[in-house]
């Protein structure tokens, strides 16, 4: 189903994706995802939230072509994903994944090199991306000289420099302290409002999900299914005023109610598993 301009209405489709992990020591396989379906539109910002081990990161990696699912398929622009799509999808990982032996600018340039950008263009594209995250003064610094928040901004600059339509973020704030992550969240919201990218964010944080998302997919405990989809009808960029509003709290509480049972179930299951 194409739109008049030849693109697909849904940039990302997930069709009946199930995934099993082989058990580590000969036990039963672990069913991580159970027949998940979803559609994500161009320019949409969605979050996956759910208890630990619910398969949200697995689904992200299926969409990114890093894992091929046991059954079902992910489609990007109507094409079934069979491997990484460096021209269409950029990643931000939990750790910044910056190369410690390369300067900040070289870390961005290396991604461009892998992506196949011509040598002459890399410098200017990388500098522009660094400017966009406000770290142009640190181009020649090395990762160990930066704070955790700055490192993650460099990782963001690297992802932005790749100029992909889709950005996948796998708990990008996990290693940051809470103040840093909220500021980073605001920056992200502002940047992304101007970039018009399609974003999928995997997170554990209710506040981050509400702050950044147009829609939030709430996952059940293992095996992961979609329990509910929460729509946040608030324009980007989202402001500190939104974060302190009653609506924000109400949405956050609603999300918590949806999640609580699943988290309890996940903890209970793990307890059984231990005995």
């Amino acid at each position, binding site marked *: 189903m194409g739109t008049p301009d030849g693109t697909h209405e849904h940039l990302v489709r997930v069709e009946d994706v199930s995934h099993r992990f082989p058990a580590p020591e000969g036990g039963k396989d672990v069913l991580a995802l159970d027949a998940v379906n979803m559609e994500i539109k161009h320019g949409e910002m969605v979050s996956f939230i759910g208890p630990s081990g619910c398969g949200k990161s697995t689904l992200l990696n299926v969409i*990114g072509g*890093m894992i091929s699912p046991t059954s079902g398929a992910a489609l990007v622009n109507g094409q079934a994903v069979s491997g*990484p799509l*460096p*021209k269409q*999808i*950029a*990643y931000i*990982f*939990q*750790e*910044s*994944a910056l*190369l*410690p*032996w*390369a300067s900040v600018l070289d870390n961005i340039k*290396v*991604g461009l*090199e*892998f*992506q*196949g950008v011509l040598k002459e263009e890399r410098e200017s594209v990388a500098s522009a991306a660094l400017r966009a995250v406000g770290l142009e003064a640190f181009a020649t610094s*090395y*990762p*160990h000289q930066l704070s*955790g928040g700055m490192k993650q901004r460099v990782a963001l600059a690297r992802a932005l420099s*790749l100029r992909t339509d889709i950005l996948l973020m796998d708990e990008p704030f*996990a*290693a940051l302290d809470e103040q840093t992550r909220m500021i980073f969240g605001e920056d992200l919201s502002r940047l992304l409002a101007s970039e018009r990218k399609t974003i999928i964010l995997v997170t554990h944080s209710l506040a981050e999900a509400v702050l950044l998302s147009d829609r939030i997919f709430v996952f059940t405990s293992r095996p992961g299914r979609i329990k509910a989809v929460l729509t946040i009808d608030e324009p980007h960029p989202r402001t500190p005023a939104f974060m302190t509003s009653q609506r924000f709290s109400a949405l956050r509480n609603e999300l918590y109610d949806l999640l609580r049972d699943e988290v309890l179930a996940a903890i209970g299951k793990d307890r059984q598993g231990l005995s």
Partner: protein
Amino acid sequence: MSGAAAGMGEGVTGRLSRRGRWLSFLTKLGVFVMLMLLWHAVTVTEIVSPFFLPQPGAVMTVFWRILSSGRAWPDVSVTFFEFAVAGPLAVVTGIFGGYLISMTRYSTIVLEPVVSSLYAIPIIIFYPISIMALGIGPESKIAHGALFGFFPICLNTIQGFSGVDAIYLRMARSTGATKAQLLRRILIPAAAPTILNGVRLGLMLCFLAIIGGETIASLEGLGHRIVWYAEGMQMTNMFAYIVFVILIAAVMNICLSLLELRRRGA
């Protein structure tokens, strides 16, 4: 969440301020001067018989004489030649072998312990065999030097390549890196500090094995000359040659350290 410290080979230790570097240099110089003074003291007071341990001044005089007369040259050139062949041989085979073993997870798990156990054998016990097979000339020293040097280089290469953090590999894969780009931009720079450490240790062992081999059975070389003077009870001459060996080892160590510092992008 095992957050922040994904950095490998970030070794900031040993990075000192300018003043710190001076102090460190002076301390090292101080230790050296103290040792020389101690040597001088025990020989002048004859706590140790000057027959076994000649005075440092006398040793330096002889050292200077053999250096300026060129008398040491035949032995130095033999030892140098052996090291110049055995050292690079150990480096090339060690790195290549280690790289091959580290290419798959399976071969790493299976073969790394094999190489480690071979390394644990005192290789010197095979020296009589290589004397028989290769003769008393430089060939047996080269073979042993290369064999001694191979193991630490090979093991560190395996460790360097297989220890690369998976997050870098995921980053490379998601951005579409080719095999060659992965090797050049991620694997080699990530493994380099560990490999260089192995090269340093390997070359030291290689030199040790060559000198050792010369002292056991040889007709030429620095090791041979030291034993020769010892057997002839010419202790001052013997110590002059020992100074030679120490100087070569020190120069080698400094060169390798500089190489490591450069890699670290200091």
